[in-house]
């Protein structure tokens, strides 16, 4: 199979869609006319070797990098400068305020997003569900990576952000942490959130992602469900399929 870019956008998309997304850093073409879409209630796995453009794509979607060209839409409407209300990005090193407690992170989200009255109860419930109720008064500096991720996910859910992006979320988590995160993402997905996860851990992908998008040198080179890809390339495992696609 060649390395031709493939078009994955569906014109009637109701979810998150990127069309012709391109980003250069000097002479390096990090993302090259990328087209894809993800529906609500879906988890999309963004796969690819190092330097494939996964992180750049996520940064563009989150509005932290300005694409050189292309459109990013949510429910058919182009995302603008206030896209923070729609998109939340949790990076490989989840950043929290070291000098704010877990609860104060929720307060900040509640106040800055001007959430309607009653958000405090929702925040309490979210922390409970994330298993963070005991850590309510723990400062950010004392939280492990897994806990930081949970705080950020809780904050995202509190802000009711419909799109959640995670960059290499499994790196640095122990098996229990990975298991918990997988369950959490499935739960978030079931509640209607659109989730995009970039990862290198192929074994993890199989257990919770609905669709896969494989990037290589900034271009989309394969996309579809897991079984669909296995059938298309005639392999038994995702690893073999992946290696053939990106070779």
């Amino acid at each position, binding site marked *: 199979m060649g390395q031709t870019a493939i078009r994955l956008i569906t014109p009637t998309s109701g979810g998150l869609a990127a069309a012709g997304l391109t980003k250069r*850093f*000097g002479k*390096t073409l*990090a993302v090259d006319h990328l087209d894809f879409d993800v529906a609500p209630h879906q988890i999309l796995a963004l796969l690819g070797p*190092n*330097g494939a453009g996964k*992180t*750049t794509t996520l940064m563009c979607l989150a*509005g*932290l*990098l*300005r694409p050189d060209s292309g459109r990013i839409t949510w429910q058919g409407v182009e995302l*603008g*400068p*206030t*896209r*923070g*209300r*729609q998109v*939340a*990005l949790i*990076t490989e*090193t989840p*950043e*929290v*305020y*070291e*000098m*704010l*407690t877990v609860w*104060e*992170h929720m307060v*900040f*989200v509640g*106040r*800055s*997003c*001007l959430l309607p009255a009653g958000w405090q109860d929702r925040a309490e419930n979210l922390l409970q569900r994330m298993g963070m109720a005991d850590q309510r008064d723990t*400062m*950010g*500096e004392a939280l492990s990576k897994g806990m930081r991720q949970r705080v950020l996910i809780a*904050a995202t859910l509190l*802000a009711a*952000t419909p799109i959640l992006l995670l960059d290499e979320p499994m790196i640095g988590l122990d098996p229990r942490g990975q298991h918990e995160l997988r369950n959490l993402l499935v739960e978030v997905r079931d509640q209607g959130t659109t989730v995009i996860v970039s990862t290198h851990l192929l074994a993890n992908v199989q257990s919770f992602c609905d669709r896969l998008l494989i990037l290589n040198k900034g271009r989309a080179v394969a996309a579809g469900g897991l079984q669909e890809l296995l059938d298309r390339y005639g392999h038994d495992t995702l690893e073999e399929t992946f290696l053939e696609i990106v070779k």
Partner: protein
Amino acid sequence: MSARRLSALIWLDWKLFVNRIRSIRRNPRRLIPWLIFLIWLIPSFINRLVIGSNLGRGPALRTLAPLVGPLGDFVPGLAALALGFAIWRASDRPPAAFQSPADARFVIGAGLDSRAVFTWLSLRTARRLIVGFLLLLVLFQVLYLPWLGFNLLNALAFTVALATFGGIVFGARLLAFNLKRKVPWLPVGGFGWLTGIAGTGAAMAMLVEISGTATMPAPIERISAALPPGSWMLSAFHGDLAAELLLLVFAVGFTVVGIALAGDCYPELWETSSRVFAMRQALRSRGGMFGYLGARPADSRQNVRQGARERRARSSSGQRVPGGALIVFWTEWQSLKRGRGGVPLQLAVVAAAGVVGVLVGLAAAKGLAAGGIIAANVVLLLVVWSWALSVQLGRYLGNPLWWLSSSPLWSRLAVWTLARGLRFAVPLILFIEVAIAVFGRYEWVLAVAPWPPLLLCWLTQAIGLAGYAFLPARSDYRLALTVRMFAIYAIFVPLALAAIPGAVLRSPALLVALPTLLAATILVGLIAFATWRIEGNGLAFAQEERQ
């Protein structure tokens, strides 16, 4: 703009401040490095005051005072140059104002209106300027201005004028960036260039005038002296309230208009801020400014994002590579060569040292005390720089290749400290040699002069190594730096004592030989200490450093 959203941001700053205080109260050990620092600072403060009051009557100041006076004439030109540069830079890059990645992520993630965010960032900048310049006021008033015959009011006028100029620069950057985003065809960068050129011209005109090289036509002289905002600053320095008010009006005006023009700019704001985070991280983890200059981002994506050069270099053939412990020289040389700035940067430093050496030599030959002051400050600068160099051996100690070497650890550590010391020693030695040669006396010193600075630089690095062996740490800003500074002070005491016999007996040979011998002994002792601590325990050190 929503006042409620802005209030959330102000609440955030307040909470961060309160929690920091609480955290210190819960764990007062966080203050220990600061206490140690204060214990060091207070005596040197008093010492400085004593020296200062003596200097006020001494010949050095009488030489310096006439030099300081004409500097005021350069203010209009230099201020315009700084402003022009800031406007040019800001035309495609906003001021980096987020303090942490969490700051950027949460604030951008909250989808706040960019005007609210810029207002908040401006308030932060104002707070930083006020606090910074209050400290400057103390410093000026206590340490410097009394020498030059200034009183508290002069010092206040001086610092307030500087602070408001800082506000003008910030406001102008904000305005330039947002204006460019709003009206892309507007040549904002070009305007910055013009301002900078006007400033440079004014400064050059003043230089020509003051040096007596030529007489400037009256209109040029008038324009050079009246160039705002520097001319307002000069008036404000002299206590002109109207000029101070004018500066303030422009600082606030630029900022307010800049905020009003703010639009979709989060990606640029994030990009500039993340560059600052990366630099700050590199400064903390890779050993000071020189470490940063030599550092390369470990993450290839970050590398691409920052537009760094391609990470390729011609491999060495391996034919002229020294063997044994000396190979550490080679690895350090490769790092230096391939680091940011590379050999041209080092050559520029060496050339600058040579030029300063000529100036000092000439000044000394003419009997000007200013030469001595410049020389002392150059040496001090180098020593302070070498203090700021943190030691991180983790990349060696955590590397199995390091432990495959057949050379004993002490020899590799000795070579490593020498290689690092040479970065400072080479320009320092050149500076001293040139200064002596130009001075035209004591030529016999030329042969001896290189050795004490070389030993001094080597010793400083060995102190850093011993400090690391005592307290391996990734961040060197606080405790490790303080420990090293103390160690340097402690070691200089016996060195000074060793110089006494030579001074008493008026024997230059003894004056150099005894301290040199003692320094060499201490150097050997420090390397032996570090070897004893690290030998057989290297991976633990690398691990400790990472944590």
